[in-house]
């Protein structure tokens, strides 16, 4: 069934495939570089986990790079993102330095949150990355609130909210969608349908065939499904939705068909997948490979791409070295920032 669905993805996409020439060569190199960065940094996170240097849990999005890269590349500075605990890629895509992200996964003092948040809560307000939320669906109404602020204050930023297919079955998703539509908020909802909620195929637990798009009409929204492995399609779809939000046209819900190469979290070997499914996606549908081949076909030289690859690897290695050398956080931050006065005093 899953094979069926992904096979039909492009056919079922109601977005017009973009003629490649519409995206500038610079932009396409940027999209390639970004996807490569997300891929290699995530792969490094996994390697560090295997070396026992990343503790706790982490939820990788290897295989889903085109979604994060395409949506982020289409944003303006000042636009806001909200994502889930599967958020390393969305964090990096907004420009957060790799050493800060890896440092946080490793629980080091140089981490983005100095080890107080961890993998599931990566946040960088200065980059417009308003947080990674580990309670499924919680951030959908929160994203509405951020968009409401822009609407109320007449500010031009838009809010983009990423979530998985599993989120479409929780109440906050439905409350948030209804809310965004009735208040006509400048928010773009992005469902990354990677075919599995956690361990269970999404189709087995969902009333409609397309978990997000199948619900769109209930909120008066256009059902949009796109091929989430094609960064060009992702980018152009994102751009259109952002333009609509920015010009007062209200929210958009976009379902991206994609696939995660690893299990739900580090504890999940993903044995529930049918034989051959992973190989198929990695072999035929890998977003980084698809994009690399497309650029070569469009006349970009192998050496240009190889130089990008090498530079990305160098940056990943540097970030890793920084994190390995970083100390653990000091004990005194244990009780800081519970309240706005910087401390935690609940009594006098």
């Amino acid at each position, binding site marked *: 069934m899953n094979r069926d669905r992904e096979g039909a993805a492009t056919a079922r996409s109601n977005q017009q495939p973009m003629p490649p020439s519409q995206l500038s060569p610079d932009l396409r190199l940027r999209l390639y570089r970004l996807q490569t960065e997300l891929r290699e940094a995530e792969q490094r996170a996994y390697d560090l986990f295997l070396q026992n240097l990343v503790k706790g849990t982490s939820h990788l999005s290897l295989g889903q790079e085109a979604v994060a890269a395409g949506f982020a590349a289409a944003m303006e500075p000042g636009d806001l993102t909200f994502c889930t605990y599967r958020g390393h890629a969305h964090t990096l895509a907004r420009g957060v330095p790799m050493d800060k992200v890896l440092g946080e996964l490793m629980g080091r003092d140089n981490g983005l949150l100095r080890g107080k948040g961890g993998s599931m809560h990566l946040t960088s307000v200065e980059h417009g990355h308003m947080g990674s939320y580990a309670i499924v669906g919680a951030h959908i109404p929160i994203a509405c609130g951020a968009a409401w602020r822009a609407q109320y204050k007449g500010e031009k930023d838009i809010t983009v909210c990423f979530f998985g297919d599993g989120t479409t079955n929780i109440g906050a998703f439905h409350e948030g969608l209804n809310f965004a539509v009735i208040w006509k908020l400048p928010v773009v909802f992005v469902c990354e349908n990677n075919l599995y909620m956690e361990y269970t195929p999404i189709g087995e637990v969902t009333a409609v065939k397309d978990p997000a798009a199948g619900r769109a009409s209930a909120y008066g929204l256009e059902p949009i499904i796109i091929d989430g492995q094609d960064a060009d399609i992702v980018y152009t779809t994102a751009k259109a939705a952002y333009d609509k939000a920015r010009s007062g046209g209200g929210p958009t819900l976009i379902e991206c068909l994609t696939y995660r190469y690893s299990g739900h979290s580090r504890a999940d070997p993903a044995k529930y997948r049918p034989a051959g499914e992973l190989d198929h996606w990695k072999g035929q549908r890998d977003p980084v490979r698809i994009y690399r081949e497309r650029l070569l076909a469009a006349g970009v030289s192998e050496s240009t791409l190889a130089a990008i690859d090498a530079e990305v690897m160098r940056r990943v290695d540097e970030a890793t070295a920084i994190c390995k050398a970083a100390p653990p956080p000091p004990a005194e931050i*244990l*009780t800081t920032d519970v309240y*706005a*006065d910087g*401390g*935690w*005093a*609940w*009594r*006098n």
Partner: protein
Amino acid sequence: MDVLMPQLGETVTEGKITVWFKSVGDTVAPGDNLFELETDKTSMEVPATSGGVLREIRVQQGEIAPVNAVVAVIGESSNGALAAAPRRPGIALEPFQEVRTPVRNYGPAALPSGVRVSPLARRLAAESGIDLTRVKGSGPHGRIHAADLNTLQPPPTAASTPVRTLYRDIPFETVPIDVMRRTIARRLVEAVQTIPHFYLSADVELTRLLSIREGASMALGVKLSINDFVIKAFALALQRVPAANAIWAEDAILRFRHSDIGVAVSIGGGLLTPVIRKAETKSVAAISTEMKDLAARARERRLQPHEYQGGAASVSNLGMHGVREFSAIINPPQSSILAVGAGERRPVEGADGAVRFATLMTVTLSCDHRVVDGALGAQVLGAFKAAIEDPVALFE
């Protein structure tokens, strides 16, 4: 972002704000002039180095502040960080000690007879030396409450009945003796009967101290009292004369490394003597802050025993009541107490033989002769006088 008092020249220590160009709530851009500053050297306009909203002005027009003092606060302009309502300074919570369990224990909850005793009654009995086996409890199942201690009559002494009979023709009100009064009475009788007291007095000139105090109070933003300086000076004097920083322990003399100074605080119905620990190591401002807290809590009867026990010496100051000089009874088991009188303008003979007026106060040191001999006491008093009269050392 804090706006600091700039240092307009190497030797400048403070500045006066003559004009504020911005008001609280104004939006400020980097480079906007904030205020005009006047020092003994120059006057200039001081611009903002960061943008935002002027949240707070701490040094007003016409006021003087030391270099580096925070004179104003500039906050974020957008994304609505509102000025927080002024917070009362909370206590600093210690991780894993959010609740502070008293360290001292006052004996078991049940007597050998099985009678239960309330925690308050146990504490009061221990502090005033009451034998709980002689107390009859009035609570449920005969539990002893604090009030039961007050009903305990001391063993009749020869004096008590005749005293009343002497006054039987005169109307009087009978005031019951509470636990604190009884404790004070017992301890002072013990002190006078067992401690061989002798007394040394000296006049101490305050002129320099008073002028330094004014400047220091302003610079620190803390109102320093003469007593704060007396505590520090006495602590330093005991460091100079270590043999006097000691107490009589019957089988030995206990000599201390640090100067823990008790300070008599009058509270409703009695007095308490909270102790400033290691007073020689603390700044006068720190002593002042600690003393205010201890005195306030003493008056609320909220001191923990460890806060009023120990030390080798105490200070008792009745100067604020206009007392010129007095001698005090030593607070056992300590070995000395310094009785401090009021500062007064008195004529003194200057170095040139001319008469001038200066502010002097008379202090009297009561000493336990078992520990402190006359010459030793005189050394302590001399060191104290030197410290007060050359008060710069008090700030070291």
